[in-house]
């Protein structure tokens, strides 16, 4: 997933209350009423947060008029986790290549435990 596609997800997640809502939803789907209790927020305030999360594709909501349970959606969060992992891997792999390159410069053979090309 590109950084562009992740922008709405990042901005939805930049808010601690919204992250807490997601953590709560990781335990299972909830109604707005159930979500309101631990956060001590008014219905309009919580609804506003839910709308941002829904727009970012992080949650979906049921169609039942009264109940409308909220549930977590996996895809965008996976994208965020991948992005972070990519950054770590970027340095790990640069180190691997640096190691190979230094061996080559010095005219050494790869050590037996080295990665096979």
């Amino acid at each position, binding site marked *: 997933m*590109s*950084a*562009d596609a*992740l*922008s709405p*997800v*990042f*901005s939805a*997640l*930049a808010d*601690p*209350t919204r*992250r*807490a809502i*997601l*953590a*709560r939803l*990781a*335990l299972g789907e909830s109604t707005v009423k159930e979500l309101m209790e*631990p956060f001590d927020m008014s219905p309009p305030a919580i609804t506003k947060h839910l709308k941002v999360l829904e727009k970012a594709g992080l949650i979906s909501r049921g169609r039942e008029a009264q109940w409308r349970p909220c549930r*977590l*959606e*996996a895809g965008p*969060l*996976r994208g*965020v*986790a991948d*992005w*972070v992992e990519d*950054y*770590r*891997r*970027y*340095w*790990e*792999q*640069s*180190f*691997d*290549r*640096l*190691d*190979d*390159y*230094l*061996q080559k*410069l*010095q005219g*050494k053979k790869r*050590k037996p435990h080295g990665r096979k090309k």
Partner: protein
Amino acid sequence: MAAKNEQAAAPQQAELTLSRVFDAPRELVFDVWTDPKHLAQWWGPEMFTTPVCRVDARPGGELYIVMRGPDGQEYPMKGVYQEVRRPERLSFTNQAMDGSGVELLEGMTTVSFEALGAKTRVTVRTVMRAKVPQAALALAGMEPGWNQTLDRLGAHLGAAA
């Protein structure tokens, strides 16, 4: 509980430190970090090439590196050298940009080279700061706690799917 921990604000700054011992003398290892001819040979992830590698390794000098992924997408990175002390230490700012050139993150990377006999320990420490609010979460993701949260969410959803 989880919900309480997650109340903490997303950090605007995060650190990543990696260290490895290379079987080469310190001067050589330092030089392959500062000479563009060498740098272009190893910089970036596996399967990436480095079509542009402009490096002026002296304090105030600029670096501009474009990496090209296996899918042809290019990832530009630019920065300015702060400290260049052969053979023990190197530091530079680095900016990560998205495809349209918008700066997402700004980092300060310090590379130290420690002689261990004929070998060299290289330690890279990057402190990243979010340039845009959207990047703050990416930094939060570098924190172990938040990663675990993501793992948990992922596992939960994997099970539900």
